């Protein structure tokens, strides 16, 4: 039975739960993940959608410098953040290591799927002139562990679909079996009765999903 404060046992989350989890995720990220700009909550205030708490999380203009040198020491990406509040002018003074590096910009949206009752990650990449990046180019920006995961797994794959609210093609990460690994995450933790508090749902979810696209969250967020 899903009551207000708990995540349902089967690894899914309600719309209301998603809003709560999103707030908690964004707040912890802002506090503990200082190498990135904060996520913003984009309310769905389109005329025909008046439910108060509906919206999605947005993290935009994350720069990934794709160097021509293939040998990256670790799996983590060289990520610089181009922070700008929406109202301010975009600041492009980014640390560029190497003149040959080409800056790729990424936007990430975490959107609730009412059908599957889990979050979905939408993302897109573009170069500094705004031209969209193809999936081939994007794959080169992903950690190499992800690429093999994508190619051979039944867990995740990337498809191109219309963004549910923005009428543009975005890439979507399909974590089929999301609710299974959320269930595993709740069972392997010390939560009472294996029920994860809803506030931690998105953090747990992102700890897996984010890694596929090279976004790591600090361990402190999971506490």
């Amino acid at each position, binding site marked *: *039975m899903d009551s207000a404060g708990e995540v349902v046992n*089967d690894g899914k989350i309600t719309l209301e739960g998603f809003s709560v989890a999103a707030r908690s995720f964004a707040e912890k990220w802002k506090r503990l993940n200082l190498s990135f700009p904060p996520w913003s909550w984009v309310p769905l205030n389109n*005329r*025909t959608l*008046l*439910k108060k708490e509906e919206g999605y999380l947005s993290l935009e203009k994350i720069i990934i410098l794709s160097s021509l040198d293939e040998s990256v020491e670790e799996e983590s990406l060289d990520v610089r953040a181009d922070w700008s509040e929406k109202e301010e002018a975009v600041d492009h003074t980014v640390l560029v290591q190497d003149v040959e590096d080409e800056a790729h910009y990424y936007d990430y949206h975490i959107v609730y799927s*009412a059908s599957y009752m889990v979050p979905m990650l939408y993302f897109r990449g573009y170069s500094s002139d705004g031209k969209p990046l193809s999936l081939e180019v994007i794959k080169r920006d992903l950690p190499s562990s992800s690429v093999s995961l994508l190619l051979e797994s039944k867990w995740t794959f990337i498809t*191109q679909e219309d963004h549910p609210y923005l009428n*543009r093609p975005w890439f979507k990460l399909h974590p089929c079996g999301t609710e299974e690994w959320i269930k595993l995450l709740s069972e392997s933790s010390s939560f009472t009765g294996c029920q994860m508090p809803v506030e931690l749902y998105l953090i747990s979810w992102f700890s897996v999903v984010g890694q596929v696209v090279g976004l790591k969250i600090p361990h402190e967020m999971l506490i």
Partner: protein
Amino acid sequence: MAANEEEAVKYIWEGAIPLQIHLHKSEVASHPAPPPSLVLAPRIGYLPLLVHLIKPYFKDSLPPGEDSIWFDYKGLPLKWYIPTGVLFDLLCAEPERPWNLTIHFRGYPSNVLIPCEGEDSVKWNFVNSLKEAAYIINGNCKNVMNMSQNDQEDLWTSVMNGDLDAYTRLSPKIKMGNIEDEFSRKASLSSTQSTQGGTEIEVAGQVKTARIPVRLYVRSVSKDFENLEDVPEIDTWDEISYLNRPVEFLREEGKCFTLRDAIESLLPEYTGHRAQTSGEEGEGITTEEEADGSQETRGEIKMVRIQGIEMKLEIPFSWVVNNLMNPEFYLHISVLVKAPQR
């Protein structure tokens, strides 16, 4: 299946839109320009599936190069994954027969349309929608995943060819279940106080309502109109609100859950007789001007179309779902609303 249900399904599968397809003038490389091609498009089908009928008419007129095919209606690029009948109901307030569309073989607008690699893309979209519908109805998509590859192929082929007989033979293999089954199954589950289902379909969690796959397409106008011809054209997809979310079907004793109830559950600001604002935060609820009734502040549902039929909103929703859904088990609803005025 009851006799009238059989009739309804036939009606759906036989429904078609006459199209008049014009080659975009920038791609006419022959003189004289080719005349438009006339095609009868199945309502439950998809535009890319018609290309093999249309291309022969135009191939001699095309400039050299590779094809990347897309359609537009009065300049609006058409989303190929929306069934043709739904596009027609949504974009043509006053039905235009034949429906004049423009076909392009070059210059795919990939900034607004997701890519389409012909029949494979359309099939993938269909199967995906079927899985999503299954997930909504059953709580998982095992029924679709457990279908053999051949059965899935045959199912798709039956839809592609508009072969209702083949589809009817195959649909028991999908094991989808309709609303009535859902309610009696859940009733028996709660009465036995057990999460072990005795039926083939498994349920996730204890849910008191049934979830119905619905795709809602909402067009909004700001002024009242006398005739449908006066409804302004759509220039971009941003003018249409697309809601892909299930309807929670509430079953209460002595009450009938109508089509109106279903739509209002998805569009709460068009509910009943409450005055609503246009949603600006902090504005609160404005009151209606009573004096001469001319100051309208509430939004209003002007028209609802499903499978080309203008629906009376008091029809029981279960009938609508069971009879008017598409082969992938989704109910596509086009709604024209008058937006709330400030």
